[in-house]
């Protein structure tokens, strides 16, 4: 029983890591722009596909061993995925912002951008699934009835590390200070000489970069890629960000793990048929008790 419980905790940590990494991107953009970037789940999907192409190219064309390929794939994918996120901001969101459009229109635009990414992928690459190449040899370790792999541990540690890095950027650096300043007052900040557009670009680059990282880890853990893979997990990560208190990095991180834990634990103790029913009822109860989420405080500093 104890072994099974620990096993479930490890499963929950791994599954929650993906929610957490994606929720971080939602929450950062929301914190700066109060924009719910619904295309974020699909940016994650694009990240996984970029990782697929980069990894396949390095493995087959350059013939390098798996661990070098992985070491090259991670930064390349993160950079390319940030480029996708930034161009989305540049092409779709910034023109609307310039025209002073209401936030609602920007959110609808974000939804459409997500659909465009999905269907562009479907049109360009076709509907058949891609199998992600194995970059590292997976070792299965069993200690006292608890089984884990090197990949699972790596996923969990990467998620924690990403949180620490992002939290440091937001709380300790000048850029982070500017981000927080923008969320306080979008109109006074440019008067202080802060380039508001560059800060927004940096926010999108960071959020998308970590979605790309989530894409690589996801593709390595669940090596079947399809154009709609980001939709559901993106929605759920958004829920995680809201439950954690959207706009707050700690909230997104904990919300992600909370959602992962609730989903896994429900299956562990109840019939799996009721998983989503019970999982989302629990989240609904949390939200009705604390409508601004675990870390959200109404109308104060966000991010």
């Amino acid at each position, binding site marked *: 029983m104890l072994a099974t419980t620990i096993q479930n905790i490890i499963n929950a940590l791994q599954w929650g890591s993906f929610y957490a990494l994606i929720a971080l991107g939602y929450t950062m953009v929301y914190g700066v722009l109060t924009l719910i970037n619904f295309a974020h789940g699909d940016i994650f999907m694009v990240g996984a596909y970029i990782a697929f192409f980069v990894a396949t190219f390095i493995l087959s064309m350059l013939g390098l061993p798996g661990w070098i390929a992985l070491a090259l794939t991670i930064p390349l994918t993160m950079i390319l995925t940030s480029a996708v996120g930034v161009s989305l901001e540049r092409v779709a969101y910034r023109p609307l912002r310039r025209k002073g459009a209401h936030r609602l229109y920007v959110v609808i635009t974000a939804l459409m951008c997500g659909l465009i990414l999905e269907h562009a992928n479907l049109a360009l690459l076709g509907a*058949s699934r891609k199998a992600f190449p194995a970059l590292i040899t997976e070792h299965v370790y069993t200690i006292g009835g608890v*089984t884990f792999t090197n990949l699972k541990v790596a996923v969990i540690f990467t998620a924690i590390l990403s949180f620490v890095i992002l939290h440091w950027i937001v709380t300790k650096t000048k850029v982070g200070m500017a981000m927080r300043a923008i969320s306080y007052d979008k109109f006074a900040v440019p008067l202080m000489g802060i380039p508001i557009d560059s800060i927004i670009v940096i926010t999108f680059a960071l959020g998308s970069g970590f979605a790309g990282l989530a894409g690589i880890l996801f593709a390595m853990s*669940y090596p079947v890629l*399809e154009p709609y893979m980001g939709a559901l997990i993106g929605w759920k990560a958004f829920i995680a960000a809201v439950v954690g208190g959207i706009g707050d990095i700690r909230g997104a991180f904990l919300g992600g793990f909370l959602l992962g834990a609730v989903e896994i634990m429900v299956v562990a103790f109840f019939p799996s048929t009721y998983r989503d029913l019970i999982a989302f009822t629990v989240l609904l109860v949390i939200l009705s008790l604390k409508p601004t989420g675990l870390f959200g405080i109404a109308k104060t500093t966000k991010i």
Partner: protein
Amino acid sequence: MKKTIATALFSCSALLFAGSVLAADTIKIGYNIPMTGDIPKVGESSKFSAEMLKADINGAGGLEVGGKKYMLEFVYEDNEAKAESAVTTALKLIEKDEILAMIGPNSSKQAVPAGQVADDNRTVMVTPWSTNPDTTKDRPWVFRAAFLDPFQGPVAVNFAVKTFGAKTAAVLYDLSNDYSKGLAEIFRDVFEEKLGKGSVVAFESHGTKDQDFSAQLTKIISAKPDFIFVPDNYNQVALIVRQSHQLGYKGQFMGSDAWGSSELMTLCGDDCKGLYFSTHYAAAGAKGATKEFIDRYTAKYGYVPDDVAALTWDATNIVIKAIQDTGGLTGKLRKDRKAIRDAMSKIPSFEGVTGNMKFDEQGDPIKCAVVVRISDSGEFEFAESVCP
């Protein structure tokens, strides 16, 4: 002058008349298949197989029905592997494209609701791959080319008990898929009847879009079953088998016919080697007409046809035979569709590439199933054949 105009008018109308006669000389068959969505390879196999058959018949000058030659025209529509899209696709084919008969949908998830539409609109539907009994039950216009789950379930149970010496089993199935859920329940009932109550130690489900199965598998593995029965689509099989190995499971799996896609091995790789599943035909080691079909398909499209390709070939051939049996088409849609339905139900037995089949009063064929083993080179090797 007047005469020239009259001649011109006459020749014009003659041309128009000839045109309409030429246009009537085609037979339209609709394909309601998943070309995108969860199982795109299934739609592709169906389409490739139908294209090959069409090229054969049209290449030979068309299909002869009642002493007249008709060209075949196949209309392919994508149902996105969704139940609701399958319904709209069926309506579009029947009403807008004015097809004589419909092939597909392939999975029971789409075939069960689409069968209702075909039956209500009095159009013959033949599903190649659907194995759920509800697809054809009490629907005189709906037929199928595959065996049924109440037959497939016991095949899997008997094979596992004999080959693995299994005393206990676990089941993991897709809750939102009619096929998967139906087959899982049949399997559980048959297994418990054979080996006593409680011999199915875990009965777990997941959603269609799920990618993580670790919680269900942890539960299953801690119940220590002798094997796991997974009546799931090939894309999920790849993830389930891999994740169970990551959780330290070393035992056997038993699969169902939804495993048998040519894409299973690209997605699953080494993890799936050595596993067994029940299916409609075994490509490796086939003989006669089946071998000829496999060789031609492989030469044309570059991969071995999966069971959907073979069943689509059979389903289309059955419809074509029924059209020929009508003894002549009138050109009136309702009348011709009725004639095809009557001819379908009168076909005594049919020799297809997936074996011989006889239709019972529900429109279901009585035919054999095979169990295949995934070899170390990734081929589906014949292990056992079970006939009703």
